[in-house]
Protein backbone atom coordinates (compact mmCIF):
# COMPACT_ATOMS: atom_id res chain seq x y z
CA UNK A 1 0.00 0.00 0.00
CA UNK A 2 1.20 3.47 -0.83
CA UNK A 3 0.69 6.46 1.39
CA UNK A 4 -0.71 9.52 -0.36
CA UNK A 5 -1.95 12.87 0.78
CA UNK A 6 -5.45 14.06 -0.19
CA UNK A 7 -6.10 17.81 -0.28
CA UNK A 8 -9.66 18.49 0.82
CA UNK A 9 -11.25 21.63 -0.70
CA UNK A 10 -12.59 24.34 1.59
CA UNK A 11 -16.32 23.53 1.15
CA UNK A 12 -15.80 19.95 2.33
CA UNK A 13 -13.60 20.54 5.37
CA UNK A 14 -16.60 20.64 7.71
CA UNK A 15 -16.99 16.93 6.94
CA UNK A 16 -13.32 16.04 7.46
CA UNK A 17 -12.67 17.40 10.95
CA UNK A 18 -11.67 20.74 9.36
CA UNK A 19 -8.60 19.11 7.86
CA UNK A 20 -7.26 20.37 4.56
CA UNK A 21 -4.91 17.47 4.15
CA UNK A 22 -5.60 13.80 4.93
CA UNK A 23 -3.12 10.95 4.60
CA UNK A 24 -4.56 7.69 3.30
CA UNK A 25 -3.30 4.46 1.77
CA UNK A 26 -4.13 2.90 -1.58
CA UNK A 27 -2.76 1.69 -4.87
CA UNK A 28 -4.96 3.83 -7.10
CA UNK A 29 -6.74 7.18 -6.99
CA UNK A 30 -10.08 5.37 -6.53
CA UNK A 31 -8.73 3.32 -3.63
CA UNK A 32 -7.30 6.41 -1.95
CA UNK A 33 -10.59 8.27 -2.29
CA UNK A 34 -12.42 5.18 -1.03
CA UNK A 35 -10.22 5.22 2.06
CA UNK A 36 -10.95 8.92 2.51
CA UNK A 37 -14.74 8.52 2.49
CA UNK A 38 -14.48 5.46 4.72
CA UNK A 39 -12.72 7.61 7.30
CA UNK A 40 -15.06 10.58 6.75
CA UNK A 41 -18.40 9.13 5.54
CA UNK A 42 -20.12 12.55 5.37
CA UNK A 43 -17.87 13.38 2.42
CA UNK A 44 -19.37 10.63 0.30
CA UNK A 45 -22.56 12.29 -0.96
CA UNK A 46 -20.62 15.37 -2.06
CA UNK A 47 -17.97 13.41 -3.96
CA UNK A 48 -19.73 10.34 -5.30
CA UNK A 49 -22.98 9.37 -6.97
CA UNK A 50 -25.03 6.50 -5.55
CA UNK A 51 -23.17 4.03 -7.78
CA UNK A 52 -19.85 5.13 -6.33
CA UNK A 53 -18.70 7.00 -9.45
CA UNK A 54 -17.31 10.48 -8.98
CA UNK A 55 -19.89 13.24 -9.39
CA UNK A 56 -19.62 15.35 -12.54
CA UNK A 57 -18.47 18.43 -10.69
CA UNK A 58 -15.62 16.71 -8.85
CA UNK A 59 -12.20 16.94 -10.45
CA UNK A 60 -9.25 14.94 -9.23
CA UNK A 61 -5.65 15.94 -9.77
CA UNK A 62 -2.73 13.61 -9.09
CA UNK A 63 0.12 15.95 -8.28
CA UNK A 64 -0.32 18.52 -11.10
CA UNK A 65 -2.27 16.41 -13.60
CA UNK A 66 -6.02 15.94 -14.05
CA UNK A 67 -6.60 12.19 -13.81
CA UNK A 68 -9.15 12.45 -16.66
CA UNK A 69 -6.11 12.79 -18.92
CA UNK A 70 -4.53 9.72 -17.30
CA UNK A 71 -6.35 6.51 -16.39
CA UNK A 72 -9.14 8.22 -14.49
CA UNK A 73 -9.89 6.83 -11.04
CA UNK A 74 -7.87 3.73 -11.93
CA UNK A 75 -4.69 5.81 -12.17
CA UNK A 76 -1.95 4.24 -10.06
CA UNK A 77 -0.49 6.37 -7.29
CA UNK A 78 3.07 6.50 -6.00
CA UNK A 79 4.33 6.80 -2.43
CA UNK A 80 4.05 10.41 -1.31
CA UNK A 81 1.86 11.55 -4.20
CA UNK A 82 -0.63 14.35 -3.64
CA UNK A 83 -4.27 13.98 -4.71
CA UNK A 84 -6.16 17.27 -4.94
CA UNK A 85 -9.96 17.47 -5.08
CA UNK A 86 -10.97 20.51 -7.14
CA UNK A 87 -14.59 21.62 -7.46
CA UNK A 88 -16.14 22.71 -10.73
CA UNK A 89 -18.74 25.41 -10.24
CA UNK A 90 -21.76 25.27 -12.50
CA UNK A 91 -25.46 25.75 -12.74
CA UNK A 92 -28.25 27.27 -14.67
CA UNK A 93 -30.55 25.49 -17.02
CA UNK A 94 -33.62 26.37 -18.95
CA UNK A 95 -36.77 26.66 -16.89
CA UNK A 96 -39.38 24.49 -18.50
CA UNK A 97 -43.12 24.49 -17.98
CA UNK A 98 -42.82 21.68 -15.47
CA UNK A 99 -40.17 23.48 -13.49
CA UNK A 100 -41.34 23.71 -9.94
CA UNK A 101 -40.07 26.02 -7.29
CA UNK A 102 -41.18 24.99 -3.85
CA UNK A 103 -40.42 27.46 -1.20
CA UNK A 104 -41.02 28.32 2.40
CA UNK A 105 -40.78 31.87 3.62
CA UNK A 106 -39.25 32.94 0.38
CA UNK A 107 -38.21 36.50 0.97
CA UNK A 108 -38.01 39.45 -1.31
CA UNK A 109 -34.92 39.82 -3.43
CA UNK A 110 -32.56 42.54 -2.34
CA UNK A 111 -33.56 45.27 -4.77
CA UNK A 112 -30.81 46.80 -6.79
CA UNK A 113 -31.16 50.12 -5.09
CA UNK A 114 -31.59 49.05 -1.47
CA UNK A 115 -28.61 50.26 0.48
CA UNK A 116 -26.57 50.55 -2.66
CA UNK A 117 -25.39 53.79 -4.13
CA UNK A 118 -25.22 53.22 -7.82
Amino acid at each position, binding site marked *: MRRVSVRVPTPLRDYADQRDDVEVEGETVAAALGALVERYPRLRRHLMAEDGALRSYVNI*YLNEDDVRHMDGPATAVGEGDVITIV*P*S*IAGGGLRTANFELRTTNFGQA*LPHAEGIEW
Partner: protein
Amino acid sequence: MPPSCVTRPVMIERAKNQDETLRVRPAVLKTIHAHARAAAPSECCGALLGDGVQVVTAVRLSNEAERSGTRYRIGPDQVRELEADADRRGLTVLGFYHSHPVGPAAPSPGDIRAAWPWYSYLIKGVDGFRAYRLLEDRTAFAELRITPSPGPDRMAS
Protein backbone atom coordinates in the same frame (compact mmCIF):
# COMPACT_ATOMS: atom_id res chain seq x y z
CA MET B 1 -37.98 9.18 -19.61
CA PRO B 2 -34.45 10.55 -19.70
CA PRO B 3 -33.28 12.13 -16.44
CA SER B 4 -33.19 15.61 -17.97
CA CYS B 5 -36.98 15.49 -18.43
CA VAL B 6 -37.77 14.55 -14.85
CA THR B 7 -39.28 17.35 -12.82
CA ARG B 8 -36.98 18.10 -9.98
CA PRO B 9 -38.41 20.55 -7.51
CA VAL B 10 -35.97 22.94 -6.00
CA MET B 11 -36.57 23.24 -2.31
CA ILE B 12 -35.66 26.46 -0.63
CA GLU B 13 -35.81 26.95 3.09
CA ARG B 14 -35.15 29.91 5.24
CA ALA B 15 -31.79 29.34 6.90
CA LYS B 16 -32.51 27.84 10.33
CA ASN B 17 -29.85 29.91 11.95
CA GLN B 18 -30.85 33.55 11.81
CA ASP B 19 -27.17 34.40 11.69
CA GLU B 20 -27.02 32.82 8.24
CA THR B 21 -26.28 35.97 6.35
CA LEU B 22 -24.08 36.94 3.48
CA ARG B 23 -22.33 40.16 4.43
CA VAL B 24 -21.25 41.93 1.30
CA ARG B 25 -20.07 45.42 0.53
CA PRO B 26 -22.54 47.35 -1.66
CA ALA B 27 -19.67 48.27 -3.97
CA VAL B 28 -19.19 44.55 -4.63
CA LEU B 29 -22.86 44.18 -5.57
CA LYS B 30 -22.42 47.13 -7.90
CA THR B 31 -19.45 45.40 -9.53
CA ILE B 32 -21.52 42.24 -10.04
CA HIS B 33 -24.46 44.24 -11.37
CA ALA B 34 -22.16 45.84 -13.96
CA HIS B 35 -20.72 42.44 -14.90
CA ALA B 36 -24.20 40.99 -15.38
CA ARG B 37 -25.25 43.88 -17.63
CA ALA B 38 -22.11 43.63 -19.71
CA ALA B 39 -22.45 39.85 -20.15
CA ALA B 40 -26.16 39.82 -21.08
CA PRO B 41 -27.71 37.95 -22.83
CA SER B 42 -25.17 35.43 -21.51
CA GLU B 43 -24.98 34.50 -17.85
CA CYS B 44 -22.00 36.05 -16.13
CA CYS B 45 -20.12 34.32 -13.33
CA GLY B 46 -17.42 35.00 -10.82
CA ALA B 47 -16.16 34.44 -7.31
CA LEU B 48 -16.84 36.09 -3.97
CA LEU B 49 -13.66 36.65 -1.97
CA GLY B 50 -13.76 37.60 1.65
CA ASP B 51 -11.80 38.16 4.80
CA GLY B 52 -13.68 35.53 6.76
CA VAL B 53 -16.47 37.87 7.85
CA GLN B 54 -17.66 39.59 4.71
CA VAL B 55 -17.29 39.57 0.96
CA VAL B 56 -14.78 42.30 0.14
CA THR B 57 -14.40 41.81 -3.58
CA ALA B 58 -15.81 39.97 -6.57
CA VAL B 59 -13.58 38.36 -9.15
CA ARG B 60 -14.90 38.07 -12.68
CA LEU B 61 -14.45 34.62 -14.16
CA SER B 62 -15.03 33.27 -17.62
CA ASN B 63 -18.27 31.39 -18.31
CA GLU B 64 -17.09 28.15 -19.95
CA ALA B 65 -20.59 26.80 -20.61
CA GLU B 66 -21.46 26.15 -24.25
CA ARG B 67 -25.03 27.40 -23.78
CA SER B 68 -24.01 30.47 -21.83
CA GLY B 69 -27.44 32.08 -22.13
CA THR B 70 -28.93 29.60 -19.69
CA ARG B 71 -25.95 27.97 -18.01
CA TYR B 72 -22.65 28.80 -16.43
CA ARG B 73 -19.56 26.76 -15.74
CA ILE B 74 -16.30 27.56 -13.99
CA GLY B 75 -13.88 24.73 -14.68
CA PRO B 76 -11.20 23.33 -12.39
CA ASP B 77 -8.32 25.25 -13.98
CA GLN B 78 -10.05 28.55 -13.20
CA VAL B 79 -10.88 27.36 -9.69
CA ARG B 80 -7.26 26.37 -8.99
CA GLU B 81 -6.00 29.71 -10.27
CA LEU B 82 -8.63 31.52 -8.21
CA GLU B 83 -7.66 29.67 -5.01
CA ALA B 84 -3.99 30.50 -5.56
CA ASP B 85 -4.82 34.16 -6.20
CA ALA B 86 -6.98 34.34 -3.07
CA ASP B 87 -4.18 32.78 -0.98
CA ARG B 88 -1.69 35.34 -2.25
CA ARG B 89 -4.06 38.14 -1.23
CA GLY B 90 -4.83 36.65 2.18
CA LEU B 91 -8.48 36.17 1.22
CA THR B 92 -10.81 33.19 1.17
CA VAL B 93 -13.14 32.03 -1.60
CA LEU B 94 -16.48 32.37 0.20
CA GLY B 95 -18.65 31.54 -2.77
CA PHE B 96 -19.62 32.31 -6.32
CA TYR B 97 -22.07 34.51 -8.19
CA HIS B 98 -23.87 34.21 -11.48
CA SER B 99 -26.64 36.03 -13.31
CA HIS B 100 -30.03 35.05 -14.67
CA PRO B 101 -30.35 37.61 -17.50
CA VAL B 102 -34.04 36.95 -18.14
CA GLY B 103 -35.20 35.28 -14.95
CA PRO B 104 -35.58 35.88 -11.25
CA ALA B 105 -32.80 35.44 -8.70
CA ALA B 106 -34.04 31.97 -7.87
CA PRO B 107 -32.02 28.77 -8.18
CA SER B 108 -32.75 26.36 -11.02
CA PRO B 109 -32.60 22.54 -10.87
CA GLY B 110 -29.17 22.77 -12.48
CA ASP B 111 -27.99 25.07 -9.73
CA ILE B 112 -28.77 22.59 -6.94
CA ARG B 113 -27.37 19.54 -8.75
CA ALA B 114 -24.02 21.24 -9.17
CA ALA B 115 -23.87 23.04 -5.85
CA TRP B 116 -21.29 22.50 -3.14
CA PRO B 117 -21.99 22.89 0.55
CA TRP B 118 -20.47 25.74 2.59
CA TYR B 119 -20.08 28.10 -0.39
CA SER B 120 -22.51 30.99 -0.70
CA TYR B 121 -24.18 31.28 -4.09
CA LEU B 122 -25.24 34.78 -5.03
CA ILE B 123 -27.65 35.10 -7.95
CA LYS B 124 -28.30 38.36 -9.77
CA GLY B 125 -31.70 38.12 -11.43
CA VAL B 126 -33.97 40.65 -13.07
CA ASP B 127 -35.57 41.23 -9.66
CA GLY B 128 -32.34 41.81 -7.76
CA PHE B 129 -29.98 39.70 -5.68
CA ARG B 130 -30.62 36.61 -3.63
CA ALA B 131 -28.14 34.28 -1.92
CA TYR B 132 -28.27 30.61 -1.04
CA ARG B 133 -26.30 27.85 0.58
CA LEU B 134 -26.75 24.12 -0.06
CA LEU B 135 -27.97 22.02 2.85
CA GLU B 136 -25.70 19.16 3.85
CA ASP B 137 -28.17 16.51 2.66
CA ARG B 138 -28.26 18.17 -0.79
CA THR B 139 -32.06 18.27 -0.79
CA ALA B 140 -32.50 22.02 -0.65
CA PHE B 141 -30.95 25.44 -0.57
CA ALA B 142 -31.16 27.65 2.47
CA GLU B 143 -31.82 31.23 1.56
CA LEU B 144 -29.37 33.61 3.17
CA ARG B 145 -30.09 37.15 4.21
CA ILE B 146 -27.94 39.58 2.26
CA THR B 147 -26.58 42.24 4.56
CA PRO B 148 -24.81 45.15 2.94
CA SER B 149 -21.74 46.07 4.97
CA PRO B 150 -19.74 49.27 4.65
CA GLY B 151 -16.56 49.62 2.66
CA PRO B 152 -15.34 49.80 -0.92
CA ASP B 153 -14.81 46.89 -3.28
CA ARG B 154 -11.25 46.01 -2.39
CA MET B 155 -10.41 45.38 -6.03
CA ALA B 156 -11.85 48.69 -7.17
CA SER B 157 -10.34 50.77 -4.39
